[in-house]
């Protein structure tokens, strides 16, 4: 099976600082891939490179067989930024309908996307009047409405109540089962176990690219947080 996303030797500089150090990894199609690491580890930068809005220093990113950011990919890739990027002075429904129109979908698709994120009842409210968690879900709905082949989500579950988080993860897996490829970043290790594939990032370096089961086996612990720590320690011990 060809990878949905292939990253090769990606180097990204921000100012004088190198924020990604020759990162190479791949994302399997039709799966939920988790990008995990502490805040400031370069997760958002890597996701921005995948959707093609990040200026890269060297290396390549191939998405659905095309260079990242290629014009024809824009109808096939959905992106949700970490801070909700929706219009606060529009209602939830107006936001969803605008992004639906940009993707060539109709109003019914917009309503369906709102129902998927549990915002059906809040559709008539201004986004600016919503709580932070609701705003994030509105932002997510605006990406879901396009029904993209690849969905790139930057910390979509931050600030959500546990029940909603479980529902969203179930929705992500339902999308994956229907063929969508998802890349979901998180700094919460307890979400790692929900992913089919795990990319662990720290200080702009990829520590691991494996399934949760492989990671547990390799580090000899059932706790993924512990596993992450043991990888970090192994990295720090001079060879």
């Amino acid at each position: 099976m060809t990878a949905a996303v292939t990253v090769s030797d990606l180097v990204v500089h921000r100012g004088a600082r190198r924020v990604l150090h020759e990162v190479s990894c791949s994302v399997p199609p039709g799966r939920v891939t988790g990008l995990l690491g502490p805040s400031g580890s370069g997760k958002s930068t890597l996701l921005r490179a995948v959707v093609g809005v990040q200026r890269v220093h060297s290396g390549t990113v191939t998405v659905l067989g095309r260079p990242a950011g290629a014009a024809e990919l824009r109808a096939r890739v959905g992106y949700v930024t970490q801070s909700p990027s929706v219009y606060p002075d529009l209602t939830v429904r107006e936001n969803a309908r605008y992004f639906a129109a940009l993707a060539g979908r109709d109003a019914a698709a917009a309503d369906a996307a709102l129902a998927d994120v549990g915002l059906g009842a809040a559709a008539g409210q201004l986004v600016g009047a919503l709580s932070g968690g609701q705003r994030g879900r509105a932002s997510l709905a605006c990406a879901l409405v396009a029904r993209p082949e690849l969905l790139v989500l930057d910390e979509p579950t931050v600030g959500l109540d546990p029940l909603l988080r479980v529902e969203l993860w179930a929705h992500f897996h339902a999308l994956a089962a229907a063929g969508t490829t998802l890349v979901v970043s998180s700094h919460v290790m307890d979400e790692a176990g929900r992913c089919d594939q795990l990319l662990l990032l720290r200080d702009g370096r990829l520590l691991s690219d494996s399934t949760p089961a492989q990671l547990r086996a390799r580090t000899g612990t059932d706790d993924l947080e512990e596993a992450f720590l043991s990888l970090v320690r192994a990295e720090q011990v001079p060879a």
Partner: protein
Amino acid sequence: MTTALSPRLTSATAGRVLRQLRHDHRTVAMLLVLPSALLGLLYLLWADVPTPRGQPDTFDRIGLTMLGVFPFVVMFLVTSIAMLRERTSGTLERLLTTPLSRLDLLLGYGTAFGLAAALQAVVTVTIATTAYDLDVAGPLALVVLIAVVDAVLGVALGLLASAFARSEFQAVQFMPVVVLPQFFLCGLLVPRDQLAGWLQAVADVLPLTYAVEALQEVGASPEATGTMWVDVGVVAGAALLALGLAAATLRRRTS
């Protein structure tokens, strides 16, 4: 984001911008009422000042010019702030990952605020010619047309200026930078043929000069003149140029 235009995406974007405006009742009220109120102040200013024999009425001359200046200034400000918000809120970055092209986005803004300006111009022209007895020799529809073209110029320059502003504080300060020199040199304060040669040359490349000249043509002659159409064309061309430059400042990849 591509460069190919899509009328469907442009109109979706214009509709979105208008819906944002509609939710902001105070802004709508100010857009519609403020120019008329300010024009009323100008009317009262000259109401009791005698006009020298053989000279055109001062309010007729200045009031008519202001019908072109108001939409230009207001739309410049509104657009530069609106676009700055797109940049700082992350919605621009998101739009750049969708099939919407850069020109679709900018033309969407131009269309939305152009329509708002048309409504504003109809209100202002109606009040000016009834309540304030503004005398216009030519058709009022042409005054509205020129006001709308001026507004689109304001939108285009506002979109361009927003690229050079990092904050709303900076964005509002571009207003005097862009607007005041054009206003000083447009021929309203001092007739252009009385300006020093080099100032005249500067005035000749500033688009507001042509907008004001177009309005003066409509004010003076009952039929549309060739000069007026050339002036309108120059202003529209300047607006398109500014939109093109603004599109070039929308970088898809940032660091």
